[in-house]
């Protein structure tokens, strides 16, 4: 038996709520899909079959008593392994957190549980969310379901794959410089990075605290909107979360775009962009026009500095955030070859030497340098000034247009291993996504076509802070006007 394809979030929730399906059956289908497909795809680092089954049965029991289930009752959801889950391993894709079982739930997890979601497992990712291909995972290779010789994007590669390959209804990822939108684009699903402060970061293991946000993946914009409604909102445990009302995002989606002004930044269609990607994105812009939107040329003049600015600020914060992995209180601790204890300094060194992967070490060193005495002004402080200029660019642009449309990624999914030896090439994959994080704005990636090799291409819709409703509406109107969502990755069972 195969999973009912595709497994939508709202559709599944409603089917369970009205008694058409049992949460336990939905859960079993998801578990079976994982069992069948994940050996190859590598989307999961930990599957909680037992816990998920128990949660699903509890939902069925609640429904049987005629009680009102939550907004996600019975919906199988996967969570990126950088989000802490009480009693479930949380590794961040790193050896250094091997064996770490958090004693507490992240706020987003608590909200999922309260809404009745069934946590199916923890998804693969680049170590500490540092990467754009998922190849920096210390545990396993994640593959793109559209072509398993290719990367799924990153760092939330596993969360994108889990949704793309129908192993769950929706998932959570984290986005520091594009880590939700880019894999969504490469894996052909919808992924949203909320405004900084929209979703609590409490329990999201920090990579770069001033840039990180948790956000949803699903196959449809409406499902992304529904999941966002559950996880968004003020959290007293996160001082940077904002106390602003949370609309019911999935209720206010539009299908026409009359009067919507769409900006296209001229700096984004320059060298490095793949011709097929450009063609698909230009086609999508035409479609937006057909739907009633007006297209405007806008300028984000500081775009050329965004990547450098991002890699200074993100690495500086990371160098401090990752200092706590010292092998003393949790996770991996290096020991002598004979199993004996090491002297303190040796233990720190050996633990971090063996526990962290190359990319993480590279970023810790970059960030440490940027904050060092004598270099702080030239690097960290200057990057902060550039960040303010980039924010100003967006503020100015959003005075003229309602949303900004760009490619999500300059290319479709590349071959596994193609960029591993060249970190700079890898960093360039984030060129269209990092500015949104630096500005603290929101952005969503929605499928907008395929390459000649049947690889998905994503359209990025950016909005100002707290304009999630607006960008979701544009993405939804576009999605409904096209048939891309009916295309599914090649499936071994249906092939």
């Amino acid at each position, binding site marked *: 038996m195969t999973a009912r394809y595709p497994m939508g979030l709202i559709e599944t929730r409603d089917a369970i709520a009205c008694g058409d399906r049992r949460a336990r059956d939905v859960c079993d289908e998801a578990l079976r899909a994982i069992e069948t497909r994940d050996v190859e795809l590598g989307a999961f680092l930990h599957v909680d079959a037992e816990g998920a089954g128990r949660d699903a049965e509890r939902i069925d029991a609640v429904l049987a008593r005629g009680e009102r289930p939550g907004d996600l009752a019975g919906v199988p959801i996967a969570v990126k392994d950088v989000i802490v889950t009480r009693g479930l391993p949380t590794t961040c894709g790193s050896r250094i957190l091997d064996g770490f079982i958090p004693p507490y739930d992240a706020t987003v997890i608590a909200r999922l549980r309260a809404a009745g979601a069934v946590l199916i497992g923890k998804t693969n990712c680049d170590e500490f969310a540092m990467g754009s291909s998922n190849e920096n995972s210390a545990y396993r290779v994640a593959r793109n379901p559209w072509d398993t010789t290719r990367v799924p994007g990153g760092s939330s590669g596993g969360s994108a794959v889990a949704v793309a390959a129908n192993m769950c209804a929706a998932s959570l990822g984290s986005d520091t410089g594009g880590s939700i939108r880019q894999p969504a684009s490469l894996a052909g699903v919808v992924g949203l990075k909320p405004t900084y402060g929209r979703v609590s970061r409490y329990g999201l293991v*920090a990579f770069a605290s001033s840039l990180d946000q948790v956000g949803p993946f699903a196959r449809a914009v409406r499902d992304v909107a529904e999941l966002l409604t559950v996880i968004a909102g003020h959290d007293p445990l996160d001082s940077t979360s904002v106390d602003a009302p949370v609309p019911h995002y999935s209720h206010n989606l539009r299908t026409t775009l009359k009067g919507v002004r769409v900006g296209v930044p001229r700096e984004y269609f320059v060298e490095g962009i793949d011709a097929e990607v450009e063609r698909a994105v230009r086609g999508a812009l035409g479609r937006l026009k057909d739907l009633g939107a007006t297209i405007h040329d806008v300028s984000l003049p500081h775009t050329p500095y965004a990547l450098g600015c991002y890699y200074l600020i993100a690495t500086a914060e990371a160098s401090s955030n990752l200092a706590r992995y010292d092998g003393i209180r949790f996770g991996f601790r290096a020991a002598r070859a004979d199993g004996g204890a090491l002297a303190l300094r040796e233990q720190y060194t050996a633990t971090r030497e063996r526990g962290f992967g190359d990319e993480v070490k590279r970023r810790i060193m970059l960030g440490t340098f940027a904050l060092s005495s004598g270099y702080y002004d030239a690097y960290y402080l200057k990057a902060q000034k550039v960040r303010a200029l980039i924010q100003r660019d967006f503020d100015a642009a959003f005075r003229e247009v309602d949303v900004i449309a760009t490619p999500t990624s300059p290319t479709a999914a590349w071959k596994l291993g193609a960029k591993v030896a060249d970190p700079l090439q890898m960093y360039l994959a984030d060129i269209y996504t990092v500015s949104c994080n630096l500005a603290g704005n929101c952005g969503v990636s929605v499928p907008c076509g395929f390459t000649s090799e049947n690889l998905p291409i994503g359209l990025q819709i950016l909005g100002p802070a707290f304009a999630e409703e607006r960008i979701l509406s544009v993405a939804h109107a576009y999605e409904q006007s096209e048939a891309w969502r009916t295309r599914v990755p090649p499936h071994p069972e249906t092939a």
Partner: protein
Amino acid sequence: MTRADFEAVIGLEVHAQLLTASKLFCGCSTTFGAPPNHHTCPVCLGLPGALPVLSRRAVEFAIRLGLAVGCTIRKKNRFARKNYFYPDLPKGYQISQYEEPICEGGRLDVAGKVVRLRRIHMEEDAGKCVHDAAGSSVDLNRAGVPLLEIVSEPDLSTPEEAGVYLRALRDIVVYLGVCDGNMEEGSFRCDANVSVRRAGARELGTRAEIKNVNSFRFVEKAIAYEIARQVDVVLSGGSVVQETRLFDSDRGITQSMRGKEEAHDYRYFPDPDLLPLDIADASIDDVRRTLPELPAARRSRFLVEYGISEADAVVLTADRVVAEFFDVVMRAYAGDGRRAAGFLRTDWLRVANDRGAADVVARVPAAKIAQLLQMVDAGTISIAARREVFALLVDAGEGDPEAIVRERGLAQTSDAGAIEAAVDAVLSANPNEVAAYRAGKEKLLSFFVGQVMKATRGKANPAIVNDLVLKRLRS
């Protein structure tokens, strides 16, 4: 050049642990003495994903101290991360304030000298490492406990001045209720920056920072040692190196801990987990309204308002509970302030030091103290009897002074006839002493008075006894 050609330049950095119920960035208790790692949570353990949330109370305490010592309160201030590795520092960084501290400027008047303050900032404490035969362990109960770091300008020039400054600062934080001021338990800690230079020189010498000084006495000893050491270095043709030194209280010396080249690069940067703190004028005013009168101001007022001596005023204002009680007693008593002060600083304080001032205040309220004072003024009881009645009131925690005097027969006799009879009896029983007195041995007066008091079992009014004895001897 000799030692006398040098002067020392001293600045102190004091860490005062705040008396808040919870830690600076989480809800864990700050109570001392719990089993190791008992008062911990994901935040103060530095678990992955946990985030700090600032305690409003700690901010209020910082403002309270800032206002009391004349600082400017920075309306926009910020927390920064101070990065370094140590097992007792769970996050690998300490959340502190760097470029934008909550308080700037300010001053303390220390024995007629103004000591300027540079800044006061908030920060979290680290945990504690415990080393024993079984190995080393870490206790994180203290990790995240709120501290204020109070940094003086290098305006002090002797160890004694440093001691006076430190005590004055301690009195203030205790008075304000922001810190218990306990140096031995580590809730009030001091690092000293010391340098020496030719007397009158403008340039500052190279300084050493002395750490691990945990009593007022040790601060003075450590600084005195360090000044002598640095002067010796210079006199012998060497130069002082910039370093951090530890005070060894057993040997009374300071020893190098780490030099300048081993100094940490703390890589301070604004903590992205905490928003810049925006303090409204209104909340500063709220704190200002609740500030108690500080010891120095209260002392001056006591001199003027109650006419008491400087020495009494110093004693009575040292403790806030005592000082406030004295005010209440004076309102109820309305008599001579010097007499009230005399009783409070002797008999009353003796008991209060024993049982705690707050307890004594609760057991014997000001109205009863006023009654006791008035009874002595009226000659109804002797000072000795007052002491006795007061002791009874404290022990019982209740009771009416007049009733006690009555029941115990403690009222003193002012009846001249009865006293006269006793005086006559004493004089006729001691003819030799009377003769000696009259021959010029006037010291014997107190002997006769004592005998009369003994004969009347202490109830005679001593002033009247004195008068009568003199009268009889001279007749």
